[in-house]
């Protein structure tokens, strides 16, 4: 009973909005692909053409804009196959380490402050290893109770799904199967 009262009391406290909650979530996926790192990297670094390998992406609109700091920034608007869009920005593209970094500005994924890196490394036997890492927060920014669809699990499921289906198909496309 005490517990229930305590929970009720927490629910009654006034909250003011923060930019995001303090506990970020992480998704990390790797896949080995039987194709050269150069070939795989060519697909990954082509920021405006992920529809070539990601099965969830219908099309991409690429554009360059000045951001708030007055710097040129590369943006892409992904249109997804099931409908809906995601607006993303390219943060960096490093040819030496074959690593691309990007973030989500807004879109249909149930995540907040999403930041990601995807990199290609040489593996044994002329193969490649692709590593995709994401850091993000759930949509709901305050203490519980959390509305359905805005919790950690919804955010994790969405990103896990995006990485799993993407990497699986990247492997097929790069291996020419």
């Amino acid at each position: 009973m005490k517990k229930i009262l305590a929970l009720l009391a927490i629910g009654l406290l006034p909250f003011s909005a923060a930019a995001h909650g303090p506990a970020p979530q992480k998704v990390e996926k790797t896949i080995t692909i039987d194709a050269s790192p150069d070939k795989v990297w060519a697909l990954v670094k082509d920021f405006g053409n992920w529809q070539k390998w990601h099965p969830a992406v219908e099309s991409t609109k690429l554009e360059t804009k000045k951001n708030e700091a007055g710097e040129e920034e590369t943006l892409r608007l992904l249109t997804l196959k099931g409908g809906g869009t995601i607006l993303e920005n390219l943060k960096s593209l490093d040819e030496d380490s074959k690593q691309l970094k990007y973030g989500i500005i807004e879109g249909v994924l149930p995540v907040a402050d999403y930041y990601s890196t995807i990199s290609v490394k040489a593996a044994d036997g002329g193969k490649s290893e692709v590593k995709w890492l994401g850091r993000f927060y759930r949509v709901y920014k305050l203490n519980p109770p959390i509305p359905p669809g805005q919790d950690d699990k919804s955010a994790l499921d969405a990103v896990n799904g995006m990485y799993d289906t993407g990497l699986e198909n990247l492997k097929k496309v790069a291996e020419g199967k």
Partner: protein
Amino acid sequence: MKHTIRIFSSFLVFLAFSLLAQANEAYITNQGENTVSVINLADHSIIATIAVGKAPVGVTASASLGRVYISNVDGHSVSVIDSKKYEVVDTIAIPGSPVGIALSPDSKTLYVADWNDNRVLAIDTADTEQRREVSIGKAPAGIVISQDGSKLYVANRDSNDLAIIDTQSLKILQRVATGEHPFGVTLGPDGKQLFVVNVYANSLSVINLDNLESRTIAVGEHPYCVTVSPDSRYAYVTNTQADTVSVLDLEQNKETAKIRVGGFPEGINYDASTNRIYVANWFDNSVSVIDASSHKHIQDIPTGKQSRAFGQFILNKTSH
């Protein structure tokens, strides 16, 4: 003869290790597995992995109490670790989401910032039921206390300022504007300057505590935390989205080097006993070690999942 020398050198090595038994230690919070990794800073071995509350983030260590305090943001608690036994000896319930955590210089008061309720709790370390609180700006993040214990400085991430609080009355004395989204803070070794990292502005604010004038120095992408060399010559800032540490020359007032470290570097501390800098890497589950004399990245120590180490995570065991 050679054999004798070998035995003798082994003895010397043994002796050296015995003398180093009281090495400083780093307490690294691993948010993704609810543990703290304790690193021996003389030989970089992992001494212990301690289970704490859910989603540990912040750390503050007291040599005089032999205690290390860990804020568990999703556990809504603070875990108290005994630094001799390497085990949790107490858990303090914190209503809300504790992140920033710091001790008064005399270790009598523990300050804990509650991110979602926009307040800071002041807890008596001798009797944790005794607590006071102060309401401050939006999303209080990094906190630090002046060397004389009279003032508490709080970076308010979503109101873009630093609040200065009188620790006796718990009244806000002043607010100083910072860059956009201040997060990590540290006090300079002489206690006269305060360093605040501005996440969205990609900069470091250096605030002169005598006149509250501030200057900013540009750093890398999405910076989080800062530490300063004991001679106050250099500041080191973790750039989370560049996987680097910016070396800032505080005399020239600019960045002079970028050191590549692990993925998504967060907490950073300078260990004066070894002149090394330790950086917790959230993406790589490791701690990067930087040699402060050469500014070279010399080692990565595997820790636990999603290492953060937000705050003063080094326990000074050598000078006590």
